[in-house]
């Protein structure tokens, strides 16, 4: 991959400092690429100005696909292609089809949702996630700023990060 970019990586020791830092950096007009933390930080998506993801819509659509697939399969097999009477029921015993329909709906909704999540978060098996600092798996919070996407000078961003409470600021090319 040749499309490497330069990132300024601010390291934060504490989530409260991080939350204040994010506010200050954004108020300073700097666009944040992403923030990484070893554990979920409450209210961080509000501070970062993230919109709610559409993952639930994806789940609904996959669920709908599962329902359709299950009903088509069962009706196709048991009613259309080779009509069978089982237990004295009609050729189209809808109640008997519901358990399979329910299971396939849940299966496709959950698999579809997990799969979509892995792909959009760049956690897919063939993806190479950007690891800005190994310490995010331990006890440090990382704020990554894409230099190419900001018109502010590097030194100014460095200073802003330091002022916002970053314990160290590094430059990383990924």
């Amino acid at each position: 991959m040749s499309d490497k970019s330069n990132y300024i990586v601010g390291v934060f020791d504490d989530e409260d400092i991080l939350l204040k830092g994010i506010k200050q950096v954004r108020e300073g007009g700097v666009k944040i690429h992403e923030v990484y933390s070893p554990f979920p930080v409450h209210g961080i998506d509000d501070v970062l100005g993230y919109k709610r993801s559409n993952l639930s819509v994806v789940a609904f659509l996959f669920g709908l696909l599962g329902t359709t697939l299950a009903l088509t399969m069962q009706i196709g097999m048991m009613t259309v292609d080779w009509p069978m009477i089982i237990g004295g029921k009609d050729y189209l015993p809808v109640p008997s089809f519901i358990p399979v329909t329910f299971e396939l709906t849940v299966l496709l909704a959950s698999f579809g949702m997990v799969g979509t999540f892995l792909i959009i978060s760049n956690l897919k098996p063939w993806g190479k996630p950007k690891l800005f600092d190994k310490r995010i798996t331990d006890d440090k919070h990382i704020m990554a700023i894409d230099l190419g996407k900001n018109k502010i000078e590097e030194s100014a961003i460095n200073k802003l990060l330091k002022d916002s409470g970053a314990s160290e600021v590094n430059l990383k090319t990924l």
Partner: protein
Amino acid sequence: MVEERFDFTPKAKKNLFILIAVGIVLTVLGIITVSMGGGHHELEGAAGEHAFHWTKRLYANLWIDNVFFAGIALIGVLFFAIQYAAQAGWSAGIKRIPLTYGYWIPFAGILMLVFFFLGQHDLFHWTHHDLYDPSSHEYDSIIAGKAGYFFFPLHGGGLPVFFLARMVIFFAVWYMLFLKLKSVAYSEDLDGGSEKWFKLRKLSAIFIIFFAVSSSMSAWDWVMSIDTHWFSTMFGWYNFASWWVAGLALTALIVVLLKDKGYLSVVNSNHIHDLGKFVFAFSVFWTYIWFSQFLLIYYANIPEETIYFVERWKNSHYALLFYLNLIVNFFFPFLVLMTRESKRHTRFIKVVAPVVILGHWLDFYLMVTPGTLKEHGGIGFMEIGLLMVFLGAFLYVVLNQLSKAPLFAKNHPMLNESLHHHI
């Protein structure tokens, strides 16, 4: 934290009295129409059929409404108990509202006894003396085999001692535990600290265990025994699920309406979201239980079991209500409350909650009516009127008691957590 008190205004009281009065008028109107129709049936009765009397329909309706509201009263206390047993923090600001439903328990208990003695022979086939007499041509060996469950220690056909003892003991213990929970909860507010909270946890656990057994048995006694030959091992859960969803919907509705009136400053859209999730999730749970009971009977196709659904589903008289039951209790809340936004906005809760409450009344209607009234059942003035009377009386008792204490406990140890609830 400022103390908040609900003001039960004379206007609100007047509205409830109007609701009850209209309900009584509708009931009388219903009695008149049914008794006129009853005369018509008496002509048909020449063919040897028993004449249908309007009192039977009245008793069936009183029974449905009383069982329904007794359940909601218990669900309120159960909801309160679960919050303590689960150490829930989010609900600290709202849990006094379901707790006050418990004030209806003594009324429900007395009414249950009265209605049983009024309508026992019309409602419960098993109360007929001849069924237990081997020399009678009405003798029913299956019901006679179940006599001990109703009549112990007496012989079948007499006073149902065991049945009545269960009813009385259950109501007495429920009310006792409710009073205890309530008094500790209110003293918790005055004293602060966490000592009372631990005491409530213990009491809550006792209530939940007792409720788990007693609610199932009540469902068998009060509802399942109407179809005496028929049985379902899911019935206790099924009734519980119906009561539970109705109780949750009522709680969500009252919280939302109080919030609209400017009360409950401690409640924000996150708490409403949680209540919406409760209604959504347990509507699905109810459907799961309902369908589990239905599917096994449908699939196994054993006549002694299928009769229950033959009377309800394959009977033109009730088929429409049977489908309506599923639509209002499953498809409607499922589709409307599915998105996050609909659960957070009071507008949607105000539409879904009343529908779900009425829907679960319909569920109880479908459990009781086909077995008691057969083809004479229907939804007319009497059903609507009596539901209004009961709803009015229940709300009067609950709101009256709600106004007598602060709406939330300002010294509750979890209140601070509840204020910071964020989802």
